[in-house]
């Protein structure tokens, strides 16, 4: 337990420092300390642009970390992430349709969010038709099918899209970026994301039990279907609200719990909190790099991969011993 508390304190401190530093000093437009102290127009402008973006990046990283650990537990599979239910593909299809037919960001975000939820419903209904394996396996299989279907849809939209204006936009969207985040997106989606994180962390004990399979869950008095459904709904709600604004950024959700477990163990009561904090840190750092390394934005997913894969290798080859 002590190890967990120390780790949490470390992560919280790092988080706060990172948010402050990113807000004050990271960006293409150089702002000195004097600007901030005198609260010049330059400082005010940068504040307006950077604050929602950094906060959203932090929130998104946290939510992805949480949903990653939730999905890996309830699907009893270390490779699971919210993408497994076809939600990201659905969102991507919605967004690419939005980009194809409209110019306003609201339509892109709206269509993406909607298609994310529709793809979840499609996956769940398809899994009810299947007569093969247990419910977890059926969900995974139908998720793969729905995912493939929407990926084909995205492929088709890319194929017919104008290669000079629309196609680059779709491609960039698919690589993920926090560039589109302003205060309106932040106000609209952050309550949804925050409450989902809260509810999922309250469900963490049940999620622990679900990781042992339906039979054990029942014998411990937990209704597996109902609790799995709850966990999925809130995971998907938060992920859809992130993805519709930022594009597909699922990889962070898969990897964060793996970085955390060697340190705090498997208990989701700890893993969910630590994943939220670490996910947030990774997300802010990646976004900092993506918006400031070169003049143009570098897509978020590329940076996340460059940062997290070395960490992943380091930890999984046994750099950190588990001794709680």
């Amino acid at each position, binding site marked *: 337990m002590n190890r967990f508390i120390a780790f949490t304190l470390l992560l919280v401190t790092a988080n706060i420092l990172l948010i402050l530093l990113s807000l004050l000093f990271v960006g293409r437009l150089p702002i000195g300390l004097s600007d901030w102290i005198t609260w010049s127009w330059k400082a005010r402008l940068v504040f307006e642009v950077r604050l929602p973006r950094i906060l959203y990046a932090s929130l998104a990283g946290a939510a992805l970390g949480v949903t990653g650990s939730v999905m890996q537990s309830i699907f009893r599979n270390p490779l699971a992430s919210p993408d497994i239910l076809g939600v990201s593909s659905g969102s991507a299809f919605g967004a690419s349709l939005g980009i194809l037919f409209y110019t306003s960001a609201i339509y892109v975000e709206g269509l993406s969010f909607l298609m994310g939820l529709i793809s979840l419903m499609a996956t769940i209904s398809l899994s009810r038709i299947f007569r093969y394996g247990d419910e977890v396996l059926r969900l995974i299989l139908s998720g793969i099918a729905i995912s493939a279907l929407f990926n084909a849809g995205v492929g088709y939209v890319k194929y017919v899209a104008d290669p000079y204006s629309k196609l680059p936009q779709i491609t960039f969207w698919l690589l993920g970026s926090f560039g589109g985040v302003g205060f309106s997106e932040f106000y609209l989606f952050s309550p949804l994301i925050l409450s989902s994180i809260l509810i999922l962390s309250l469900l963490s004990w049940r999620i622990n*039990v679900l990781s042992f399979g339906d*039979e054990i869950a029942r*014998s*411990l*008095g*937990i209704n597996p279907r109902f609790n799995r459904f709850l966990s999925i709904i809130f995971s998907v709600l938060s992920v859809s609200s992130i993805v519709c604004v930022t594009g597909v950024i699922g990889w962070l959700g898969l990897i964060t719990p793996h970085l955390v477990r060697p340190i705090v*163990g*498997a*208990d989701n009561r700890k893993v969910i909190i630590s994943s939220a904090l670490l996910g947030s840190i990774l997300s802010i750092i990646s976004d900092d790099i993506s918006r400031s390394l070169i003049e143009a934005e570098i897509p978020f997913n590329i940076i996340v991969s460059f940062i997290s894969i070395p960490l992943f290798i380091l930890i999984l080859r046994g750099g950190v011993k588990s001794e709680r």
Partner: protein
Amino acid sequence: MKGKHVIEVRNLNFSYFKDRLVLCDVNFFVDEGEVVTFLGPNASGKTTLLKIIAKAITGFSGYIEVLGRSLKDFNYRDYSKIVAYVPQEEIVALPFNVYEYLLLGRTPHINLIFVDRKDYLIVENVINLLGIENLRNRLVPELSGGEKQLVKIGRALAQEPRIMLLDEPTSHLDLGNKVRILKLMREMANKNLAIIFTTHDPNEALMISDRVYLLNEGRIVANGIPDEVLSEKLIKEVYKVDVTYMKSSNATAILPVIKGFQS
């Protein structure tokens, strides 16, 4: 008979598919403080029977009464406070350590958000009772077969049940671990738990059981005190091998006879 029936089953029928009955007209009862064995060859319906009593499978016909109430009237949570189930195989997907794993046995009793001081104490008691202090921080997926079985029983004990169902608890264990688990089950029964376990080995029934039900192709073909019921003829009929009884002053065993190989 030591007490009131804690489980009573009448006319139980069950099938996974319409055409083949897995369990056919099964009747039995279990009393407090008893060790009851369901003995039978592979595919005789033992595991299915246990899962039905564990409320892990529904869709049976017949009547099951647990502590005077119909099984169907219990919700999962209330039922899990009374009945603990130890499955034969359990895949632990996440690297839980033994302590966390045992704590999950408290699930039926806690509010699912915060764990009480009392729950930690109960887990400590289980660790002491089983003598697994050395395993406390080990990861469950990395335990040996015998250790895993102990820990599984430990989690069931943490549930503080009245009835414990164990599905082939000794099937993958070496002689030492096997006897340790059997002894443990006997001790738990002496503390007034009702223990029901399945096995395909008649000798385990002889060693610790108060009563045995012999299952074959979904039917109970014999029941009673093991020494009296498990005759050579009956075993031969059910398992389709020749056997012989060996009796010494402190043990009875049933051994298969392979013709042409007697020394």
